[in-house]
């Protein structure tokens, strides 16, 4: 099912072109990652999808409808970046209002407020006002807000930025738990996090889609990533390249090697571990595949 379709989409802020002629076609299913450096256009793309801003050129469809369409409202939830809740009202009052605006009765809206706050482990904060919350708690409340009404699509703009590891994990677990009935589109700088959550990855740079990859897609060649402790990288490289079925070996970072091999190879992982043992290399990690970082930034 078509989720998001952008055709020749551009957005300009004065003379600055934030999004440059983007074409994108995403389907419902597993969480989708939106990756890119600061200023790549991720938040602009989210803002366009949510109808906060309007395109300078091109078209957008979400579930086949233009952003802001009344029928979309019950289908989409979002964590917008840099948005703050009303400081005058408690979380319960605000989340209940949002639920009522979506069509729930006052009673059902109160229950919904409690339900979504429970999901982000903040049920105790129901009567608190946003000004009394820490940054991490505010973010979790904003995520709770995105879950109101169980939308089919949830856009999360940097959901774990600035929050502690325990809460970041809670959010990741929540996304994983809900992703069988909701499609998440998650933007983040944390590639390790996205790798654990997402299958499809859209890489934006300078307002353009540079890559769109599926981490589970089968390719003509396959990869192992081997990370070692305190070795001479050049020596390791030359030894690894001599292994049968190995096509190419690259140093991804210090003491980390990405080994490209033919799919027909059998037990190469066993051979790698034996090699480590024979050479006296202490390995830290043997990964079947490449990290998202290596996939996106491989030369």
């Amino acid at each position: 099912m078509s989720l998001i379709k952008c055709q020749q989409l551009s957005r300009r802020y004065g003379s600055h072109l934030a999004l440059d002629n983007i074409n994108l076609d995403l389907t419902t299913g597993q969480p989708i990652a939106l990756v890119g450096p600061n200023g790549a256009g991720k938040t602009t793309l989210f803002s366009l999808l949510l109808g906060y801003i309007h395109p300078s050129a091109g078209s957008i469809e979400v579930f086949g409808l233009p952003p802001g369409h009344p029928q979309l409202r019950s289908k989409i939830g979002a964590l917008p970046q840099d948005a703050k809740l009303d400081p005058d009202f408690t979380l319960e009052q605000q989340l209940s209002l949002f639920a009522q605006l979506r069509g729930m009765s006052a009673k059902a809206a109160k229950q919904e407020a409690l339900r979504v706050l429970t999901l982000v482990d903040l049920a105790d904060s129901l009567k608190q006002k946003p000004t009394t919350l820490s940054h991490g708690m505010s973010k979790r409340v904003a995520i709770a807000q995105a879950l109101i009404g169980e939308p089919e699509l949830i856009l999360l703009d940097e959901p774990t930025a600035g929050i502690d590891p325990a809460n970041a994990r809670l959010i990741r677990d929540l996304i994983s738990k809900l992703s069988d009935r909701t499609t998440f589109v998650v933007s983040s700088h944390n590639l390790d996090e996205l790798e654990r959550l997402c299958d499809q990855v859209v890489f934006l740079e300078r307002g353009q889609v540079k890559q769109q990859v599926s981490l589970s897609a089968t390719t003509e060649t396959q990869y192992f990533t081997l990370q070692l402790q305190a070795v001479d990288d050049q020596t390791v490289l030359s030894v690894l390249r001599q292994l049968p079925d190995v096509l190419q070996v690259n140093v991804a970072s210090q003491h980390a090697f990405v080994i490209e091999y033919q799919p027909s190879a059998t037990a190469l992982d066993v051979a790698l571990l034996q090699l480590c043992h024979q050479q006296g290399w202490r390995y830290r990690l043997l990964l079947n595949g490449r990290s998202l970082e290596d996939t996106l930034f491989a030369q």
Partner: protein
Amino acid sequence: MNQATELHSSTVRQISLIATTEVRRLLSQTKGLVTLAAYVMLWLLILLFLVRDAVNLMLHPDAKDIVMQVLGEGAMSNLFNWPVEEFAMYWVFALGLQPMFAILLGAGQFADDIQRGTFRFLSLHASRIALFFGRFLGAMAVMALLSGATSLVTMVMAMVRDIHLALPAVICGLQVWLVILLMLLPYVALMSLLSVIASSSKQAVLYSVLFFTGLSLLVWLADVTVAPLAYLEYVMPGTETQQLMGVMPTQAPIFLKVALIQTVAFLALGFYAFKRSDV
């Protein structure tokens, strides 16, 4: 998706929810209650020290003759025809002061929330038409409560002076209240527009000052430069204030046509700007 959300909330219901939230902000939040207290205290001072003294003067047998001699037949002399003198004076003060309160309170409709990003949350759950008109009606409801409270205090003042004035005071109070609200419509609608354009409520107030002073200057220049500039007067809320001072509330509606047209125009422009704005 659960059953509750399958029912798309109607725009009217969303408008009502948003407007009610603004009233709740006034009545249940410290900031709102402080605003309410400040407003009521200010009006109490006006009513106790200006209106009451003016009423005492009006009740003097020679007062009308003195006013006629000094000011001639006109707006002020008509005040002596009111059945309840308190409301005659309240009318004069309300026509002059309530628009200022409407401008100050109406300035916060959009600007601050857009800057804070609160509208990003709201617009995920409600349409822009509901947000715009909900906030406008909320601001009007707040003005209705505030001016209603002062009208009520004026009723009590009249009854305390003469209990036989109870019925006329209630009728007069309700009439004055309704006309004042109609008169305030274009002011609040203008602030809806300016609050969308401005980046803060303070800036919206400054824009309103520029709007009124700039247009007044152009209208004044019409006499010495281009005569059609005088028509700009009809763009300014309050063009009917002078005429309203000279009539009773029951005669007021014929002077409020311009105010209603202005309201529709400002709301249309404001909604157009809000619909096109980035939140």
